[in-house]
């Protein structure tokens, strides 16, 4: 089965200050892929490249098995997109906006659009430009879902929305995905939001992909260890050392991945001992990951 999105060695430059370099990214078909990263890390740019809104300098992008931007019209007919900022005509009412969208998408499901309209409690006669931020977000999600896409690309769809609206939108999204097996590529800097729904995670920072792996693998096995008499060389360790900080003369804090019980024996065999083991949640793991990446000499992928 082809992947929903495949990016290889992608290079993009915007002016002198920002570039995406050597980006390799794969979104498995049927997955919900969380795209994490701080503001300005390149998430929106990557999404625009995926959708053919921007042209890369080098590299290849395949979306739903088709090359982008070469086959953009074909691909975009199967992609539901919710951008970061409202992009719809503010003078059209919600109903007119739906009619506009329906005209361009042959797979548009009018019945379901009507049901979503009621679920989201939207007034169809209200102009889009006069809706609240949360209502605009709901309309954009409605439009993306009602076209019955094979892939949903969501760029911080819930950013700045209140928890009730956020929950409404995400539950509609999850309902759709569970019923239709669509793939989702969702960017956010709200770590906990992605933690609940995603099965894959990619982390961007400064135009580079820092990490890319299944969510379970990301969440499980990240530990913070307090090590006394820490060995200098950790090359033979059965776990990955992401970072180590000296606390004093005889103690260090290690951030490790792939930790399993019983691995304390590795320290014991080197005259060291583990004083404490702390589980990290996704947000802690994300923060530590970025910190490690930013310390790395050439911004290499750290996981």
């Amino acid at each position, binding site marked *: 089965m082809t992947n929903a999105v495949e990016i290889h060695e992608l290079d993009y430059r915007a002016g002198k200050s920002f570039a995406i370099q050597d980006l390799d990214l794969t979104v498995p078909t049927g997955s919900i892929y969380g795209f994490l990263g701080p503001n300005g890390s390149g998430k929106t740019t990557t999404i625009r490249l995926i*959708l*053919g*809104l921007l042209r890369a300098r080098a590299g290849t992008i395949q979306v739903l098995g088709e090359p982008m931007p070469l086959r*953009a*019209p*074909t*691909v*975009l*007919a199967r*992609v539901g*997109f919710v*951008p970061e*900022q*409202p*992009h*719809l*005509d*503010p*003078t*059209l009412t919600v109903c*007119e906006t739906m*009619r*506009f969208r329906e*005209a*361009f*998408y042959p797979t548009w499901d009018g019945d379901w659009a009507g049901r979503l309209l009621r679920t989201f409690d939207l007034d169809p006669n209200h102009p889009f430009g006069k809706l609240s931020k949360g209502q605009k977000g709901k309309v954009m999600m409605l439009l993306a879902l009602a076209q019955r896409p094979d892939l949903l690309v969501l760029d911080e769809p819930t950013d700045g929305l209140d928890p009730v609206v956020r929950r409404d939108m995400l539950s509609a999204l999850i309902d759709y995905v569970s019923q239709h097996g669509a793939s989702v590529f969702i960017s956010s800097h709200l770590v906990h939001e992605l933690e609940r729904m995603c099965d894959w995670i990619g982390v961007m920072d400064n135009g580079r992909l820092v990490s890319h792996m299944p969510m379970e693998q990301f969440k499980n096995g990240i530990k913070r260890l307090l090590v006394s008499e820490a060995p200098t060389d950790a090359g033979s360790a059965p776990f990955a050392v992401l970072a180590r900080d000296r606390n004093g003369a005889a103690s260090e804090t290690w951030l490790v991945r792939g930790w399993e019980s019983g691995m304390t024996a590795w320290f014991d065999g080197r005259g060291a001992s583990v004083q404490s083991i702390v589980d990290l949640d996704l947000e802690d793991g994300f923060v530590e990951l970025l910190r490690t990446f930013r310390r790395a000499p050439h911004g290499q992928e750290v996981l």
Partner: protein
Amino acid sequence: MFRVVLYGQWKWSRIVVILGTVAGFALPILSVQGASSDPTSAMKAGELLSVIQSWGVLYPVLAAAIGLLVAIATWAPDHRGRHVLALSLPLPRWRYVLLRFAAGLVLLVPTMLGVLAGAVLASATATLPPGLETYPVALAVRFALALGVAYAVFFAISAGTTRTAGIILGIIGAVIVVQVVASAAGIELDLTNPVQAVVMNWPGPLAIFTGRWMLIDV
């Protein structure tokens, strides 16, 4: 597809279209009424032609203004949305541009018809001195062509970023208006002579805006 694009553009440009249609209808009628309001009610041919010619200046100005405003309104929703909607729709970009362009052209039709109707009505009601004739259809066709040219030029310019378009439109608009007014008023003004020779003289693209716009002529 075209219908929804047209409807969206109508919402942006309806005030301009309505005002343009009213102005286009009123212009020929007012020009003839001005001519026949003389107390003797029997103007000499030369006087009448002079009055008609002075009103004629307003036709290219109206065409340029309506073309400009409809072109701006055509791209306005896309500029507001930073073109994200247009670029993410599942159709080739050239086709989207054509849809927008064609919808804008359709919205110019009421103004064209307004000029035609006003010119026909004015021709039917005018009392002409011997030797003069009315040319309502020729005037309306010329106005339609000028409107189409103005719209096409400003449509192309408006497709750029708002800032770029604003700068270019401001310069071009100012030059055209000054040049047309000066030309009609008989003032020797050489703002852009070389450019003017290429652009404004036949077969230049804007040649249609220059010369005499006469509803009544010999």
